[in-house]
């Protein structure tokens, strides 16, 4: 058995029993990386020395038997959007290609404190803008299940690195589906917590009111373990929620008997991918068999979600990305011209096409004379979408849907058509607009052998119930035990 295919809780058991050392484990993962990375291209930066140092430290902690968490000594990867003190953080953009933050993001700080070993920083769509990781300005990441296909995005490096066994788990960010959609594409578990459950401090902003960090794992128990370490109020993030953090693992194994699972008709539409529909409907049957009650619900404003998202997210992005101006850090082009020249040349050379497109869209929707028709209207519709969920959750405990309309698509297939690409997130976006938690778990394969994801959405701060339902389904199936052949 290859230990790089094991879960966090399996590895943690072995570490605690001293069957493994963290240093040994870290070396195994680094070796695995060496063998599969040429096929997958997940990592932007590998921090082997720092990882081994952290592993030695973890081994001491394990030897001392004190202050041990389920993550102590476990190697993980981190999306290159989380600032890491002293380690290059690029956001997969040329404009930050050499940026080395003097601070750790809160998520990274907490994972380090828990004893996790960070192997390196993984690829993504530039500034998290995309659904295939093809918008990385550095290189493309390939899907471990079929290297002619994308891993999804924007956290494609996180999903691929976990699926390929290059790490035990990863952390990514989800603004409109950027954790759940790649998790679905790569056959792993991806959790987007409630907005404000995980601190955004040090997580490079794309759309501040939507961005949320969360874990990629090989199973649901690991997801609970990671969330335990990541969640909680952070005085450095005013939008982080000051609510107690339950032990998420304590929800697992309680079954779904009597749990009401809402099935929104707007998410099961004419012409959707047959394999995806079959797999998701099959998953619903499993939940029913496990004792859940399936409840038809409606989320009537779903059709507006993509439009609202591309107004709100781009508006915030246009402002969030204004700081990359060549003045203080990052790329600077044209030392000798005028100030305006420097701004233009720096931003022209530093940002990729999709990022520029979104900056322009957002700038437009915030402009005088357009604000009311676009940004303001979108914010109002966003409230209606949130209200849809509030009403639905009066009838059910969780909502089940497909994560994505299709399985992983071919590299280059949607690059030329941004609108088609945007529709990859059609089932995941509403969750961000409403701020509620959502998870994607493996629920089958297409006839071509590509993973399919089941999405479960929960009430605000009710990650516990989402994890409970996901775990119950997972334990009744074998999908999560499948690994790609590389």
């Amino acid at each position: 058995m290859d230990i790089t295919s094991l879960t966090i809780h399996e590895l943690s058991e072995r570490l605690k029993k001293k069957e493994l050392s963290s240093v040994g484990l870290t070396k195994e993962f680094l070796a695995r990386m060496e063998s599969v990375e040429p096929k997958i291209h997940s990592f932007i930066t590998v921090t082997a020395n720092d990882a081994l140092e952290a592993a030695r430290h973890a081994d001491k902690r394990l030897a001392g038997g004190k202050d041990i968490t389920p993550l102590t000594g476990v190697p993980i990867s981190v999306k290159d959007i989380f600032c890491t003190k002293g380690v290059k953080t690029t956001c997969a953009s040329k404009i930050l290609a050499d940026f080395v933050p003097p601070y750790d993001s809160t998520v990274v700080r907490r994972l380090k404190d828990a004893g996790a070993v960070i192997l390196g920083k993984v690829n993504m769509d530039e500034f998290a803008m995309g659904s295939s990781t093809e918008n990385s300005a550095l290189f493309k990441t390939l899907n471990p299940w079929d290297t002619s296909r994308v891993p999804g995005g924007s956290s494609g490096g996180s999903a691929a690195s976990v699926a390929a066994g290059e790490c035990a788990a990863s952390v990514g960010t989800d603004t409109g589906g950027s954790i759940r959609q790649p998790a679905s594409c790569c056959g792993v578990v991806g959790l987007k917590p409630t907005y404000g459950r995980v601190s955004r401090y040090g997580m490079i902003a794309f759309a501040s009111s939507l961005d949320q960090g969360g874990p990629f794992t090989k199973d649901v128990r690991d997801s609970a373990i990671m969330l335990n370490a990541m969640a909680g109020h952070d005085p450095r993030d005013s939008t982080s929620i000051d609510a107690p953090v339950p032990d998420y693992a304590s929800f697992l194994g309680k079954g779904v008997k009597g749990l009401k699972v809402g099935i929104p008709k707007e998410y099961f539409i004419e012409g959707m991918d047959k394999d995806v529909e079959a797999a998701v409907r099959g998953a619903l049957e499993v939940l029913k068999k496990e004792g859940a009650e399936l409840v038809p619900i409606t989320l009537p404003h779903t059709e507006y979600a993509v439009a609202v998202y591309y107004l709100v997210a781009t508006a915030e992005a246009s402002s969030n990305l204004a700081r990359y101006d060549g003045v203080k850090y990052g790329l600077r082009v044209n030392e000798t011209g005028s100030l305006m020249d420097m701004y233009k040349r720096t931003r022209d050379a530093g940002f990729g096409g999709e990022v520029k497109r979104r900056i322009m869209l957002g700038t437009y929707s915030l402009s005088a004379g357009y604000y009311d028709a676009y940004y303001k209207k979108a914010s109002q519709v966003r409230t209606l979408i949130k209200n849809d969920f509030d009403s639905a959750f009066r009838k059910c405990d969780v909502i089940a849907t497909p994560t994505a309309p299709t399985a992983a698509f071919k590299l280059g297939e949607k690059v030329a058509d941004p609108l088609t690409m945007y529709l990859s997130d059609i089932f995941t976006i509403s969750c961000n607009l409403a701020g509620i938690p959502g998870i994607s778990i493996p629920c089958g394969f297409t006839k071509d052998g590509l993973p399919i994801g089941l999405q479960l959405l929960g009430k605000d701060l009710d990650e516990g119930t989402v994890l409970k339902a996901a775990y119950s389904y997972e334990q009744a199936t074998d999908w999560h035990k499948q690994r790609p052949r590389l």
Partner: protein
Amino acid sequence: MKYEAVIGLEVHAQLLTGSKLFCGCSTKFGSEPNTQVCPVCLGMPGVLPVLNRKAVEFAVKMALAVGCRINPRSVFARKNYFYPDLPKGYQISQYSEPLAEHGHLDIDVDNTTKKIGITRVHMEEDAGKLLHGEGPEDANYSFVDLNRTGVPLIEIVSEPDMRTSDEAQAYLKALRDILVYLEICSGNMEEGSFRCDANVSIRPIGAEKLGTKAELKNMNSFKFVKEAIDYEIQRQIDVVDGGGKVVQETRLFDSARGVTASMRSKEEAHDYRYFPEPDLLPLIVEDRLVDKLRNEMPELPRAKRERFAGEYGIPEYDAGVLTASRALADYYEATVKATGEPKVSSNWVMGEVLRLLKEGSGDVKDCPVSPQSLAGLIKAVKDGVVSGKTAKEVFEEMYRTSQPAEEIIKAKGLVQISNEDELARIIDDIIKANPDNLERYRAGKTQLLGFFVGEAMKATKGKANPQVINKLLKEKLG
């Protein structure tokens, strides 16, 4: 005159909090460039603002002092524009939902009181500073100092209620006095901790409709504000009288030339693309906090001035001088309390105390003579221990050495001689030594009294009590 001016002011006041509005960096003025910065105020990737509660309290205090209604919920907004002194590419400010609205301030100009409306008071962060290269190698460069970035500001926007530059100046001074009284702003225009932009337009007298306004910037003293407004009013009158039209624009005041010049037109104006700041929650100011701050509100300059004039019976002018700062007013009141002599105390504080303070920092907090100590001297004069003239010398010595009046008087032998027997002997000697003058005095040349007084003072080295001398001389010269 056919036209009247319409003036509204936008004042930015830096708050005297120890740390910045959204991070823990120091707000100290004048440090080495870029030594009071952190990832948050440098606008580094991924960092987030955390609101300084003290700054909120300061802002609420000012809003209350100018009679504003505090909005229980206000919203921070991003004002987007590119400039190297603005690291995030946007300034966190407040826009459609400000902290406070609907206030007013009474000002006194030409012995009449006028109410100036205050539209709003809102909070925002300051930007950094650009220093332009001067040497041969760096003439084409500008250097960015971000120490000031993120220092808390309040913006106080008036209604267009002022009609003259004198009114504008009076409003500005009244506003600054309040800020200084509240101890929330240093009020220093030269250092830029108190800044003013003016919106100026003209219209025919009697017209309702507002004319097209120009926004004036770069006026860093009260004098310049007046000069700039006066210049701008005349400029606009000349434009209109010359058959032209005033255009909406931003104009910079050039203090060296005393003129305003166009900086950018309406067409070139920024579109700031304001939208609610998603990194901060709406600011909720609870009634409890507002009540607490209202209860803690000190007596404000205007109320204090009126009370001083009424309660102490001193002239309006004195009351104005004595209430120029809270510390000075406190000093005066403490002196009155110790002496029970409001007018005499006023003369001393406005005279000797302020005279000597002006040679130093000008701040009464640095005065080496305490009110109690000053009261001791005033009492000594009242009791006839020293003469008023000698007392001034004594005060200078007290100021220099911080010693109490009695000690200085004793040590220097300055005690006034009021003993009639002793003075009578001295006067007898003088009369005896000046028979001619005595004769001429008695022949009707009574101006010679001054001569005898002078001689008596000379003989006593100025220590003789003048009243006693006068009385005795009149008796003896007959």
